[in-house]
């Protein structure tokens, strides 16, 4: 089952002219071209509470629902096992293979040092899609270096998740500065929201800011994420032409 969406509408000439900057992976993402034979390997990085885990979890479930083999890796070594802890079983039931610490198998985490789960180190050697939920900030992004083969993996795309409702990333300049601090970033995700108070306007305003920052950074905006009911109002593309990914909130059940 090959799914090929040929992209035509909504894209500006400006966006088209920038395409030579993008790796083939990004091109694939940007054009929404997906084939079942190709691996999806994505790492979600970004600011604390920007929505990395939510984006990563939703992406993993989305891919699993398409019948794909997916591994979701919790790569947060500062607060491991806390973030995905309460929803691991639910994700496994949805067909996602989860690599994350189980609380009872660990001791003193967060106080006694940091620990990378061995399976996480070798996750890129697995077949199928691999989604990394990476720890926050620049230190979090560096964790990716601990994964064997990360520097060479031809499929890996590092995506910075931006919520412009967060004061630290509320302006174009701040977003640019923040993304530049993260090291390797291949694309941006506009995840602007106000939780249950999110309106389409909030998301669209975020799309404009993230698009402006992306232009300065020379990066594509891979997607805009929005709660399913908000996404339905916005439609398949946001005001800036970015594809809209409807998401479900899993993380409120994960206290941290």
């Amino acid at each position, binding site marked *: 089952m090959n799914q090929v969406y040929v992209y035509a509408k909504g894209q500006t000439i400006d966006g088209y002219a920038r395409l030579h900057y993008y790796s083939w992976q990004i091109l694939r993402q940007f054009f929404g071209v997906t084939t079942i034979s190709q691996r999806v390997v994505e790492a979600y990085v970004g600011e*604390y*509470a920007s929505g990395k885990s939510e984006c990563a979890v939703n992406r993993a479930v989305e891919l699993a629902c398409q019948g794909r083999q997916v591994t979701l890796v919790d790569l947060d070594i500062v607060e491991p096992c*806390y973030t995905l802890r309460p929803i691991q079983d639910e994700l496994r039931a949805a067909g996602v293979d989860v690599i994350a610490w189980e609380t009872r198998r660990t001791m003193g985490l*967060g*106080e006694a040092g940091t620990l990378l789960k061995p399976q996480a180190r070798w996750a890129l050697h697995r077949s199928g899609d691999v989604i990394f939920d990476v720890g926050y900030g620049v230190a979090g992004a560096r964790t990716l270096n601990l994964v064997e083969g990360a520097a060479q993996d031809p499929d890996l795309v590092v995506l910075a998740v931006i*919520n*412009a*409702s*967060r*004061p*630290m990333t*509320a*302006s174009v300049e701040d977003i640019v500065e923040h993304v530049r601090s993260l090291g390797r970033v291949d694309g941006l995700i506009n995840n602007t*929201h*106000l*939780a*249950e*108070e999110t309106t389409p306007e909030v998301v669209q*305003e975020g799309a404009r*800011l993230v698009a402006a920052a992306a232009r300065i950074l020379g990066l594509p905006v891979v997607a805009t994420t929005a709660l399913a009911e908000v996404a339905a109002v916005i439609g398949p593309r946001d005001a800036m032409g970015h594809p809209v990914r409807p998401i479900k909130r899993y993380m409120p059940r994960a*206290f*941290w």
Partner: protein
Amino acid sequence: MREVDNLADEPLTGEKRVFMTGNEVVAWAALAAQADIMYGYPITPQNEVMHYWTRLAPKYNKGFLQTEDELSAGFTTIGGVMAGKKAFTATAGPGNILMQEPVAMAEAMRLPVVVVIMQRGGPSTGTVIYSQQEVMLTAFGGNGEGLRVVYSTATHQELFDYTIKAFNTAWRYRFPTFVLADGYQGKMREPLTIYNPVERGLELVPPEPYVGRPGTPGVDRPPGHFRNTYNVEEELNEVLRGHIADWERVAEEIAEHEALGTEDAKLVVVAHGVVARAAKEAVQELRAEGLPVGYFRPITLRPLPSAALLAVARQAEKLLVVESAYGQFGRLLREALYGLTVEMVPLYKPGVGVTPEEVVARCREIV
């Protein structure tokens, strides 16, 4: 979305709906309250208070000093205050224990230090995550009489509002002031409105130096005798009687609470902090079904809103006391309600969260 601007002296202009973690809220609130400097030592789950303050501080010409431990963080906060700075610190768990010595000194010398606590599990290192087990420690942890103000917040909006208020309370009444939250509040994220309190017409009580003031001591102004040491019992007793009289005079003015449906309730659910959210939700659900259940929440744990609590307890048949600890909050209530025959039913869950469903279920068993 540009209302939050980078102007050095006006960090916050306009009002803005934002999405943040609780720790981050505290840093922004301190900025909004025109705090000058934070002193601190890292401990989970309050680390991001420091992280965000240190990201904001250079932009707005604010200070930060990382000390070697919480004893030092507390004493340097005292130093900042004595120099006339709006100074604060934040800690948790074992750090809160160490913080008690400097806070007791601040209590002795009537110094307006502001301390933010993100409770974690105990005793000892416990967990880094959550509890409500630092109630007694925060309210009475010093080797004194507990003459300090403790605000127990429940929402991110309150974390913002009460962190600003804590600076005002501390500088107005000159008692050490705590904002008592917890690891869930510190780490969870929800929308809130951040604002510039001055633009809202709120007065920010200005700080003033204790030491190094102009004039000759004893000639132009009274000498500044800021003491935590006395030679004899009577001398200490006289000073303490003055402090206690001040405390009793302002306690009712400082005390705050929130209540819902207590007028006709036979059973009143009493909770504080983040647990109060579960209690309130449960009570709203039960009242919608017509059950005579009410909700009472002290916002200040020190001083406790005793008058309001007594009125509620006199009217109700039973109180369901809900907390993520083994009766610490319950102990505060019992002391305030001594002599009343109202039955106190416990729902104590030390170190873990409480859901509205659990409160609803327990209420149904009781009513």
